[in-house]
């Protein structure tokens, strides 16, 4: 598997020890007040096989010939990897050559989803991270300012090592309590997207705070940050705490906690984890959410477990615990988020349980989420997916996508219809 030895991050990230004042974490990391426009050096910049192709074209047109060395640059093949046809393969061939002949850290087919790879001990608290993909917000879980851009913005970062930001106002999401029953981070994520609405946080950053946060594992935080863009947010941040420090230590990094300071939020949302029940987002909007109970019995053609939302080892392990020794009643595709996740699932027997239950496994990566390969839906087919988007036709023309948790996916796979993980 690919690791990233070359780039040495700054030792005193602004967000970790920087000035404490009446500032949000975004303001501290970007070093300016909400509403201001700033140019900032990017600590880590990454693109995948989709956006990377256009970025390379734009970079050449801009006059790019070699990359600077101060920024950590990464290219990961995850969207259509392995390539589905000759055209895709040719486009990827050019990008692969470029990545290998420059300072890029390159992760080829099977290494995994870009956001997952950046979260396996690469991104550190206080960094400014830009990915050419909307779900780059995932990395905010580490106390980094992580946001998505398009291909041409990425090309300009390759050219200059910098980009401009409008420092966002922030939405404070105050979490209390602990999950009960079968509810999990995905249900909480769907709950806050439903409350904010698809554009409720446009141009703003989410900050997850409150005593409920300390009970959340890194994997759970990554789920909450991942969906922040579904409410239109520019970033979704957690302050680095003991959980973050311990996770990064396991990945070979010594970092410090970020102390939260009093600050003003443009909007505030209070959520008690104990109130969260298993939820499903119905077609074709992520913010249109129903309790699973109401939809129980809806026949399914496919269940999909994976993606940058719910393809981590803890997700696969939870799924395996529920299907172990039983048989799924509908075609069920499980795609690990990374090669490391796959490796661990093999080592611990999780994969044997999943395959033994009649599920099939895809190459680590995005899987069918973007509707290109490895499980595209046919006209009129219905899928329960652990992904983050259920837009019209996204996973195939005429297919319908219901979004739910890993536990809901497991319960539904066993029944062949939408089923509550709390029913059994």
């Amino acid at each position, binding site marked *: 598997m690919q690791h990233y030895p070359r780039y040495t991050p700054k030792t005193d990230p602004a967000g970790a020890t920087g000035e404490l004042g009446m500032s949000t974490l975004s303001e501290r990391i970007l070093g300016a007040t909400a509403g201001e426009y700033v140019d900032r050096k990017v600590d880590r910049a990454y693109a995948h096989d989709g*956006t990377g192709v256009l970025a390379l074209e734009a970079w050449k047109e801009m006059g790019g010939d070699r990359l600077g060395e101060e920024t950590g640059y990464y290219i990961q093949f995850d969207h259509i990897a392995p390539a589905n046809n000759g055209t895709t393969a040719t486009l990827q061939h050019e990008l692969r050559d470029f990545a290998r002949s420059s300072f890029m850290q390159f992760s080829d087919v099977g290494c995994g989803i870009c956001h997952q790879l950046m979260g396996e001990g690469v991104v550190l608290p206080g960094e400014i991270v830009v990915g050419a993909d909307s779900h780059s917000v995932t990395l905010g879980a580490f106390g980094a300012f992580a946001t998505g*851009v398009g*291909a*041409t*913005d990425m090309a300009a970062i390759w050219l200059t090592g910098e980009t401009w930001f409008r420092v966002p106002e922030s939405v404070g999401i105050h979490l209390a309590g602990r999950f009960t029953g079968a509810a999990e981070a995905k249900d909480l994520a769907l709950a806050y997207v439903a409350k904010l609405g698809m*554009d409720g946080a446009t141009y703003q950053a989410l900050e997850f705070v409150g005593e409920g946060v300390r009970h959340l594992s890194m994997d759970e935080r990554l789920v909450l940050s991942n969906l922040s863009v579904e409410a239109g947010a520019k970033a979704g941040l957690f302050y680095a705490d003991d959980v973050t420090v311990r996770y990064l230590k396991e990945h070979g990094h010594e970092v410090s906690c970020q102390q939260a300071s009093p600050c003003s939020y443009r909007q505030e949302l209070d959520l008690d984890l104990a109130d969260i029940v298993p939820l499903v987002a119905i077609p074709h909007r992520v913010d249109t959410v129903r309790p699973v109970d109401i939809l129980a019995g809806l026949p399914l053609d496919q269940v999909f477990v994976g993606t940058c939302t719910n393809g981590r080892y803890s997700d696969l392990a939870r799924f395996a615990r529920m299907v172990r020794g039983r048989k799924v009643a509908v075609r069920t595709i499980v795609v690990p988020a990374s090669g490391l996740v796959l490796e661990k699932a093999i080592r611990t027997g999780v994969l044997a349980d999943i395959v033994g239950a009649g599920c099939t496994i895809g190459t680590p990566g995005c899987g069918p989420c973007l*509707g290109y390969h490895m499980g595209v839906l046919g006209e009129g087919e219905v899928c329960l997916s652990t992904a983050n988007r259920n837009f019209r036709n996204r996973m195939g*023309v005429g297919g319908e996508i219901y979004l739910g948790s890993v536990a809901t996916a497991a319960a539904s796979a066993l029944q062949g219809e939408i089923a509550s993980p709390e029913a059994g």
Partner: protein
Amino acid sequence: MQGRGTAVRLPADIDTDLIIAGRYLRTKDRSIWATHVLEDLDPALAPRLKGAVIVAGKNFGCGSSREQAALALREAGVVAVIAPSFARIFFRNAINIGLPLIESDLACEEGSPVIFDLSGGWVDTGGERHTIRPLSPRMQEILRAGGLVEYWRAQR
């Protein structure tokens, strides 16, 4: 920066999957994007976008960061997009490829003429003049250059 076109109205929350579907992304032939733009919303729409000013509901361009969405609109002949709000990645992408965006919740009839002046800060629809919020100075510079590629080419 001035421009004019014919209003084509679209609803709120138009996502980038809807603007250009994932199945058309992997190509170097940009005319494919122009042909299939907004196809899943209305298969007959693409030809009507030549010389159009799209007047949409809020949160235009939400979802995936695919720049092909902005490129598809530009290649199809869209002159500008007016909406009360845009998803932020689409906002940057559109300006970066030289497609003007105007944040405004003005109302206008389908097919009515739209004239705008970004430097002057106004839009004229069917004889009615609306004041618009100006783009940031940087975005104005990028747009004036014709896009971010041209902006950086000129700087170097």
